């Protein structure tokens, strides 16, 4: 660790302005730095590359040449097996519906509420904001059992009567995962921070022109918050696509499983059949990886800001 810290601390030092021929010490430092970052990135990237490579190998090759990075006879049979042997396509569709639905509701309601907390003056604003902020500290585990019961006994849903008896409520429907997280406190908080940075005068001017409050939000402020909405959208998509414990509890009908829950089942089911398991892993990771690569600049920068403020 000490060697790494020393190198790292040197990296932290500002670059000298005067160009001088590099000293032997600086050259060694540079080489050590490159070696260190290459080694670390190998540990972060290699497992994924190896997973991809294994998922493209035929069954006979997986164990016999497990260290060979490039498959000698690449095949898509593991991927095809996922769709022919089980409802993997259905899992992907379920996850897509849940993740995209969550993005839509969180952007809209989070934006609306965040705007109200940032730009409208009314009594109780501080209390509501504190309430949302505080709720982010409550661990999910504590509300897990009661939330299940609330959804199961929701009046007039899923065959329930007015008193929430008789049916299964929202359990085993998309609503069980979509409704409780439709407007999370994080979305409200995130959008409030974003709107607060925009000037009040824009709204005041529109107000004098007689625009309604919703119009001011929708046509004046929301277009200016596009960057924030994009980041929130990506983060919400990732959280929705990757979530595990709650879908595991609320959706147990085989046709309703999300891709993560389905994949977790495969780890046990395919104990020795790594091909389909790792093909499923690639498919389960692909959407978030693609979204991340497209948006990575915004995400990494914005994340850095939210951490320090």
């Amino acid at each position, binding site marked *: 660790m000490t060697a790494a*810290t020393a190198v790292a*601390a040197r990296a932290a030092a500002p670059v000298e302005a005067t160009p001088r021929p590099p000293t032997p010490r600086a050259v060694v430092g540079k080489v050590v730095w490159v070696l260190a970052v290459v080694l670390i*990135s190998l540990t972060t990237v290699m497992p994924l590359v190896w*997973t991809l490579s294994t998922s493209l190998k035929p069954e006979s090759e997986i164990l016999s040449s497990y260290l060979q990075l490039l498959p000698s006879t690449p095949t898509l049979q593991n991927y095809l097996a996922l769709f022919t042997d089980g409802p993997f396509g259905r899992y992907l569709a379920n996850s897509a519906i849940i993740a995209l639905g969550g993005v839509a509701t969180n952007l809209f309601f989070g934006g609306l509420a965040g705007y109200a907390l940032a730009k409208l003056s009314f009594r109780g604003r501080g209390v509501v904001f504190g*309430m949302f902020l505080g709720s982010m500290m409550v*661990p999910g585990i504590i509300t897990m059992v*009661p939330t299940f019961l609330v959804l199961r006994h929701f009046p007039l849903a899923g065959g329930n009567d007015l008193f929430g008896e008789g049916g299964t409520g929202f359990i085993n429907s998309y609503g069980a995962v979509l409704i409780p997280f439709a407007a999370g406190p994080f979305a409200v908080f995130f959008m409030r921070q974003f709107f607060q940075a925009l000037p009040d005068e824009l709204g*005041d001017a529109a107000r004098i022109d007689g625009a309604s409050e919703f119009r001011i939000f929708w046509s004046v402020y929301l277009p200016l918050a596009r960057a924030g909405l994009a980041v929130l959208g990506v983060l919400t998509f990732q959280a929705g696509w990757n979530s595990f414990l709650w879908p*595991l509890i609320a959706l147990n009908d085989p046709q309703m499983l999300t891709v993560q829950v389905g994949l977790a089942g495969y*780890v046990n089911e395919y104990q020795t059949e790594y091909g389909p398991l790792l093909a499923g892993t690639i498919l389960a990771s692909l959407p978030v990886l693609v979204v991340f690569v497209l948006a990575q600049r915004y995400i990494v920068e914005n994340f850095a800001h939210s951490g320090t403020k």
Partner: protein
Amino acid sequence: MSATSAPVRATPVSATRRQQTISAWVFLAVPVVLFAVFLLLPVVMAIGLSLTDYSVIGDFEWVGLDNYARIVDDPIFWVAVRNTALYTALYVPAGLLVALGTALLLNRSTRTARVFRTLFYIPVVSSTVATAAIWFWLLNPQYGLLNAVLGWFGIDGPAWLYDSQWAMVAIVMMSVWAGFGANMIIYLGALQGVPGELVDAARVDGAGTFRVFWHVTRPAISRATFLILTLLLIAAFQVFDQAYVLTKGGPGNSTLTLVYYIYDRGFGRLEMGYASALSFVLFLAILVFSVANARVTGRENDR
């Protein structure tokens, strides 16, 4: 950051204000209702449930504090506590040091550093389930990459997930790998705020690299350290996905964590009353450790 101080307006104040108040509550309606139904109500229900023997099927009775008394005498609960404590003791320091080390390494504004930042971040993007599936393969005693690499150095790797001595260590390694990128980014943000003049001045005074780090950099990023410690602690206390996917709590209960135990009681055996009591005990533990962390790490921030 004064959220409550309303700006003074010259326009007909009362009409605008009334209009704004109505609009604000309409805009806030959905999140507030969801907050009430899926957070406030469940917390109150959890308190009530923890005082009953509710188990979905059949009648249930008020049992007072019996569930809590039962926890104290529950040997499996203490196994879960021990496992969670072990996980926390390994994961929190490792997660913090790796995040800090990599952030210091990449704290330069070159294009190369930015590329590596993305490469380091990649594991964060994948879900814990996908990560666990990948590690399930990496950790295979015979055909896994990890033991193959250890073999190059003449080390005979353990059976990892099949060995009760090593299973938790394997889960910690996987979790650090999967999560350090996010905290690295927070540290990178904080390192931008370290005053360069101070670092230069310390160097001119002849301070070595480590002393500059300890006396200049470390205090300047203490706020980020506090945030990361809090996030790591809360995550460590609630570890579940990895243990569920990789080991199902085994072998021999060696990776049975508290959240896993609560899940198993509540949704496996449907003892929802007992599970609620267990979750309150966990909540209390998180609260105590968060407050202690705020006292110890947070105090440095006020200096």
